[in-house]
């Protein structure tokens, strides 16, 4: 009767349908009854109120019938849910990492991708890893969702049934850009998947600048883009060596974005705020990044401007 984008959709949609049909009958029925009573027994008609005050038979009836109905609802909901916890042994395992505020998917051989590309009709199990706070991985089209919690080995699985692109959303509030924590899953034919996987392998063997790795792993790129687009914070594109208009201690001034400036911005971000951006959104990274690491990041930002870094960022 139902075919959904994943093997789990049918069970979920059946439960929806069953509960909604019963809800519809009761809500319409009881509302109609109330409207009818109000009209039929209107005081304007001058009828005397009948003074009865209960009926054991009715009480039993409307205890037993709802109990049976809710038990049926429970049962059908459970039936739809049970397969979600029975993952086939041959499922392909992908680790899904949730961090403020992006998803990353790690395939075997530690190959990383921002998109979840999967072959059609093949069961896949997602191991859910949280790097900072709680998130929740939700693919509405597949009817799957499970929280991504630090210290927990949560997982979910499904088999995609159709070729296409589907949204991946975060449904556990995780701070500033929770609403932008959106990614995509691309379901493709097996051959296309293999091709994509090979490309991923080749790309990941190209050495990546240490500075870029640091920016990624520290989470800087969630708020600062490399391509000039404005996120929560100013973009890194064209930053190094440029003139910055900043507000410091209440007064505006202009500074050159040199090594000293970048270091200050990492260790004391609220000391100088680039005009047009809000205070207190970025916290000091003095606990997280050593001076040596800041040096590597600065080196990368310089290369980004001088051209060498640009092509890597495009990947």
């Amino acid at each position, binding site marked *: 009767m139902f075919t959904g984008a994943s093997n789990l959709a049918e069970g979920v949609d059946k439960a929806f349908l069953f*509960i909604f049909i019963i809800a519809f009958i009761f809500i319409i029925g009881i509302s109609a009854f109330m409207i009818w009573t109000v009209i039929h027994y*209107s005081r304007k008609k001058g009828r005397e109120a009948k003074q009865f005050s209960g009926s054991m038979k*009715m009480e039993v009836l409307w205890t037993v019938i709802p109990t049976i109905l809710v038990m049926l609802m429970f049962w059908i909901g*459970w039936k739809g849910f049970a397969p979600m916890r029975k993952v086939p042994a041959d499922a392909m395992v992908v680790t899904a990492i949730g961090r403020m505020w992006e998803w990353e998917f790690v395939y075997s051989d530690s190959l990383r991708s921002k998109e979840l590309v999967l072959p059609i009709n093949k069961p896949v199990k997602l191991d859910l890893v949280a790097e900072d706070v709680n998130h929740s991985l939700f693919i509405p089209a597949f009817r799957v969702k499970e929280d991504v919690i630090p210290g927990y080995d*949560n997982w979910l699985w499904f088999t995609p049934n159709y070729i296409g692109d589907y949204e991946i959303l975060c449904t556990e509030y995780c701070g500033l850009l*929770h609403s932008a924590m959106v990614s995509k899953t691309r379901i493709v034919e097996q051959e296309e998947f293999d091709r994509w996987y090979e490309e991923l392998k080749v790309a990941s063997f190209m050495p990546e600048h240490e500075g870029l790795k640091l920016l990624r792993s520290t989470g800087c790129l969630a708020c600062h883009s490399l391509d000039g687009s404005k996120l929560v914070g100013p973009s890194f594109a064209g930053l190094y060596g440029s003139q910055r208009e900043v507000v410091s201690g209440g007064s505006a001034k202009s500074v050159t974005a040199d090594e000293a400036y970048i270091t200050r911005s990492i260790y004391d971000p609220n000391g100088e705020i680039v005009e047009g951006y809000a205070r207190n959104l970025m916290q000091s990274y003095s606990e997280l990044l050593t001076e040596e690491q800041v040096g590597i990041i600065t080196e990368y930002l310089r290369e980004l401007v001088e051209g060498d870094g640009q092509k890597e960022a495009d990947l």
Partner: protein
Amino acid sequence: MGNETQPSYLEYQGRHKGLAGWLLSTDHKRIGLLYLYSIVVFFFVAAFLGLLMRIELIAPGKTIMEPQTYNGLFTIHGIIMIFVIVIPGLAAVFGNFFLPILIGARDVAFPKLNLFSWYLYITGAVLGVMSQFMGSGPPDTGWTFYVPYSVESATSVIWALTAAFILGFSSILTGLNFIVTIHRMRAPGMKWFRMPLFPWALYATAWIQVLATPIVGITLLMVIAERVLNIGFFDPALGGDPVLFQHLFWIYSHPAVYIMILPAMGVVTEIFPTFSQKPVFGYGAIVVSSLAIAFVGYFVWGHHMFTSGMSYYARWFFSFLTFIVAVPSAIKVFNWISTMYGGSIDLKPPLLYAISFIFLFMIGGFTGLVLGSLATNVQTHDTAFVVAHFHYIIFGGMGFAFFAGMHYWYPKMFGKMYNNRVANIAWGFNFVGFNLLYFPHFIIGIQGMPRRSYDYLPQFHTGHFLSTIGAFILIAGLLLMLYNFIRAGRRGEKAPANPWHGVTLEWKIPSPPPHENFDEIPEITSRPYFFGSKEKTNQ
């Protein structure tokens, strides 16, 4: 039973005069009004914040505010609505005002403690507001304060946690007061099963307040300790467990849902008999179902955490119990509609609101079953569907019951009549606005729209757009209703002692009630809700 020689509680001059006569009064009726006025002010503030969020969401992308502002808004909106308005809500306002009267007492058992509860309440509420201006920016955790985010957020979370902690104490003390009042202060002859049903609902509620609230108090303190002392209750790196917080939080906060809804059920249970001129149908069934809800309600908290990685059997069990707890609510609905059946029905504003309560509560209840069913919970958990569900339950249910209660008891509380026509028009705006505001959330929720989201994908635009239009209509209706009450207070006609031909005790004393409620404590000789037809025509 009433007596014209005693001044009404509004005119009564005790030791203190003027404003001090209110702020230092231990009269349960004056304290009820203190709660009423504070709740009305906070409600309109929080509703306005809700409207701002809706304006932001009228179109994708940025409309009027930054994401951080939005996150702060839904947090303080939720904190005010839950901790400052709906948890004290009906119990604090109508409970304080009418519980002693309905059981034939002159006051609650501990009048001073009662006043102290209000001071705790207002301290907590003011701290909540101050969290917006003090420290390092408005809290942005949501009213649920989930760790680890609430430990890591750089905003003034501690202020908000402290506020909720203090509000919890106020709630515990009110509950305690009501339990003792009901046990010790009933008029002679008022056996347990001669008590009207609103006191019964308050009784069930009070036990939840006393038994469940300390848990959330401790939990909030643990988060403060975690932030200040870095202890590691909830931090896996220090051997703690973030999901433990969720358990502790919901062990209180699910029963808290019943702290909100049970008194609301109690209010409409008073309204149906009066406007049908008929005894309540199934008195015993309604009492038992209130107690059953209060009891089983303790064991279903896990349904807020189905996707948190709980074990398979825990999910099974919590889902099963959630379905069980739905049954007593269904029983109540059937008893209410049977109370109307065969009556002599007068569709005045209180009844109109009570009937809308049933309608909205049914929608909230059935969508609660969708959330309680394991398969459909996966799709709807933490989406706009939940936002719609709880607004239907707490605003459509508890909120509309509050409006019903206001229209029912206003003549008694203030001794003035409001304008019926204006009340009906305001109801129209409220009902249409409410449904337009929240119904679309069910649909976009099922389609995948996450909750607590500043921005959204283009496919959710229509639903959000309609919802914002609904918010404007609703706010207009709320303001019109408020205006109607304020005007009635200034220029309304004098209310008779018993405008609706009710038979419970509050209708047998003057409007507004005298300072001591009763000159002589009444003797109770029968069950409540006895509408002898003779008696009615004599009034």
